[in-house]
């Protein structure tokens, strides 16, 4: 078990290193004359050169990269080129908004998926067909269209929720819940659609297994066998899909944050992208990659818990 965790941890850190390195090299070498872009087309060459040396852009790329990576290890990610704000503060103050959205959507989706999938797999018949058809629709419609629909229906027409704004969970839980409910619903619908299909399929497979009959023959009720044994065996593939969906949700959150005006990672990403503020973009890439690596690690550990064969190999 110990070795299993260590192995996953090392491969996660390695992945993080590779992603940030590739991103850094591509972003900095692809940006052309950065100093010129910052000071504007009317500036003199001397002004451009001064800006470049001020930002350290006149040094070789490898040296700049070394600076960045040694800084990154200590949590120091440089400053924004345009407003001079520390990248680490900008990212860390927003990452929790995005994380609470995405984690909330994942948990909601996992819970709903299990209930609906068990329902469809056990009952079959028309319930199963309806679930499958709705699943295809939910999977096909882009998440931000669903978000737009929710805004216009519940916020603009019915006025149940405020359309925009954010209250931190530390200020007021009720206020936080009211501001993230619609975004979480918008994000989780597509996720539910994908995960339900997966769990339903693995449940139907698992229900046909011999041990289901044997456990029932020992006097366990059908529901107990389904919820304790069948679900646990169907859980592995479901978790894998959930992990893939989680990565997609991080992307979807960018747009959903924009629609609901939530101060998350998406907001600074869009702003930095429009300006070409590379240090901030790098900070976002690092934060996203770190989240993905962490979640994959957690999922791996959960897989090991669900399936003893994974743990022991």
């Amino acid at each position, binding site marked *: 078990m110990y070795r299993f965790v260590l192995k996953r941890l090392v491969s996660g850190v390695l*992945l993080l290193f*590779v*992603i940030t390195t590739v991103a850094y090299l591509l*972003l900095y070498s*692809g*940006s052309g004359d950065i100093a010129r872009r910052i000071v504007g087309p009317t500036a003199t060459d001397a002004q451009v050169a001064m800006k470049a040396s001020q930002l350290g852009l006149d040094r070789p790329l490898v040296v700049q990269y070394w600076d960045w990576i040694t800084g990154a290890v200590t949590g120091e990610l440089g400053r924004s080129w345009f407003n001079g704000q520390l990248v680490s503060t900008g990212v860390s103050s927003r990452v929790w908004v995005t994380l609470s959205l995405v984690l909330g959507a994942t948990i909601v989706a996992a819970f709903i998926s299990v209930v609906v999938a068990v329902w469809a797999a056990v009952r079959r018949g028309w319930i199963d067909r309806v679930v499958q058809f709705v699943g*295809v*629709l939910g*999977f*096909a*419609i*882009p998440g*931000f*269209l669903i978000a*737009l629909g929710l*805004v*216009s229906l519940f916020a*603009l027409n019915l006025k149940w929720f405020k359309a925009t704004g954010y209250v931190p969970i530390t200020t007021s839980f009720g206020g936080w819940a009211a501001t993230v409910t619609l975004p979480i619903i918008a994000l989780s619908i597509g996720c539910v659609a994908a995960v339900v299909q997966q769990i339903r399929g693995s449940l139907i497979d698992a229900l046909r*297994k*011999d*041990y289901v*009959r*044997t*456990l029932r*023959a*020992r*006097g*366990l*009720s059908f529901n*107990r066998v389904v919820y*304790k*044994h069948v679900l*646990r*065996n169907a859980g592995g593939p479901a978790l894998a899909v959930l992990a*893939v969906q989680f*990565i*997609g*949700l*991080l*992307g*979807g959150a*960018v*747009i959903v944050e*924009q629609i609901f005006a939530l101060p998350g990672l998406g907001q600074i990403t*869009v702003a930095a*992208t*429009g*300006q*070409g503020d*590379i240090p901030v*973009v790098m900070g*976002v*890439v690092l934060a996203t990659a770190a989240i*993905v*690596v962490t979640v*994959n690690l957690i999922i791996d550990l959960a897989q090991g818990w*669900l*399936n*003893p*064969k994974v743990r022991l190999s």
Partner: protein
Amino acid sequence: MIDAPPALPVTAAKISLFRKLVTHPTGAASLLVLFLVALASLLAPVLATHDPNEATLKDVLAKAGSGHLLGADSAGRDVFSRLLFAGQFSLAGAVVALAVALVIGVTAGLIAGYYGGWFDAVSSWLTGLLMALPGMVVLLAARAVVGPSMWLSMMIFGVLLSPAFFRLVYASVTAVRNELYVDAARVSGLSDFRIIGRHILTVVRAPVIIQSAMVLGIAIAIQAGLEFLGLGDRSIPTWGSMLNDGFINIFKAPALVLWPALVIGLVCIALTLLANAMRDELERSSGPVKKGRKAAAATAAADAEGAAGKRGDAAVVHPEEPGTDTGELLLEVTDLGVGYDQPDGSTTHVVNHVGLTVRRGEVHGLVGESGSGKTQTAFSILRLLPQDGRITGGSIFFEGKDLAHLSEKEMTKVRGKRIAYIPQEPMSNLDGAFTIGSQLMEPMRVCLGISKAEARKRALVLLAKVGIPNPERTFNSYPHQISGGMAQRVLIAGAVSCNPDLLIADEPTTALDVTVQAEVLNLLRELQDELNMGVILVTHNFGVVADLCDRVSVMQTGRVVETGPVRAIFNDAQHPYTRQLLDAILEDTAPRGQYIPATGTAQLAKPQELKGVTS
């Protein structure tokens, strides 16, 4: 020219897939929607009422109707015309992403799958890397460098999407690469290029087409998302940028969001439904094997029924031996019928008018070849028939209650505690996710209502009792860590753990090694003696019957053809089928019948299914 004949079936297959899609309800509707959207976009210059970029100040946010079919946007541009022209750019952008993904993914998948080696390792690793970050974040980062060009964004997205094709092609190619016909092609001197083109591309073509529809939908969605964020090229109309304009003015003109959202949603849904329809149709057209198997099963069942009808004579019943019927009557099955509901509404009967009795302390053997209905009879006593299977008639009296008509809740109380079950295949009957110990304790705690500590103590005693050398270690093991013989002992321990009155053992030794078989049979006999249980022993092995049973029922095609005390059956078999089974025994102690030529009745006996004899 030489290539022409083999090429024919390929086009035929293509045409037939298209034809099938046209008759598939959602497939046809999706195709129609996509065709109309594509056509409208192509004919934009003809259909449009305005120049899509012509801004008229007086028409800003104009309502639908007044000179503008669907109104005008925040710059006074005609929404209808923009929608048409935007179709050109949005669809073309998605096609660019698809093309890039196809070229990279399919090529890399073919090379990595066919040649393997370092290219395989590198591309698989790259695939993992590409899929580690959300596409949206990568696109935004790229946008910071390459600027707002939609075409460049879509090319980059194509690279990000290429793993979808890479994985698909890679999996198909590695599966096909070692097929015999590919080997044959290689041996006959075809170049790799021709083999890939002829044998491998044909395999991956259909899944790639399906995946393409999905990928197009994703590309349209993500492109619309980028433009919606306001990060797109403002000089060209796209559905996403129209959505952006509409969202900014959502309070002033809510309808502006509606039209582009409707088009994007429709196209995405149509593409997904189309992919699903294609998958359905391909599965159906590759399904004759499945259909054939089902049809064969139906015919076999019908045969069985017919045969049962023909040989509907009453079973041969041997008289009781004096002094044997002393035990209390535990189970009395009368006139039992089991049927499976077919999709066409009919019912296939697999067990007809079966009757049998079990007394306390008695072992009743249920003998017959595979498919004779003995396992179905056993499952129906437990009320654990597979899905679609049900008891069609008769009664199963156990302690004065008719199990055939008991509620599921009542039945749960009977299972485990009163009637227990030992399965045939030990490994697949243990849940691999839980330890042996937890699987033994759970039913005991539910059925007997005992504490965890007590259940643990009892489980260890049981494991020792069934002859497991180190009960503590096995208790803490997972099923994949123990041998098949051990697993069967564990299942026997589980079956007797709640002191049942009746034990149903379904070929408990068939899956085991010969030496282990003898040990397990001895164990069963000991436990039966000790606990004074009634036992139904399902087997196709007369050696086992001779060893363990007090009474035998011989089943053929869903009926009991002969029943009686074991001695009577062995010494005085009346039914020809019973005699055939007895004659098939190769053991020295049992009588070996006359040699029967391989024609006529001997074929019916299917001796290959009556594997040797144990003990």
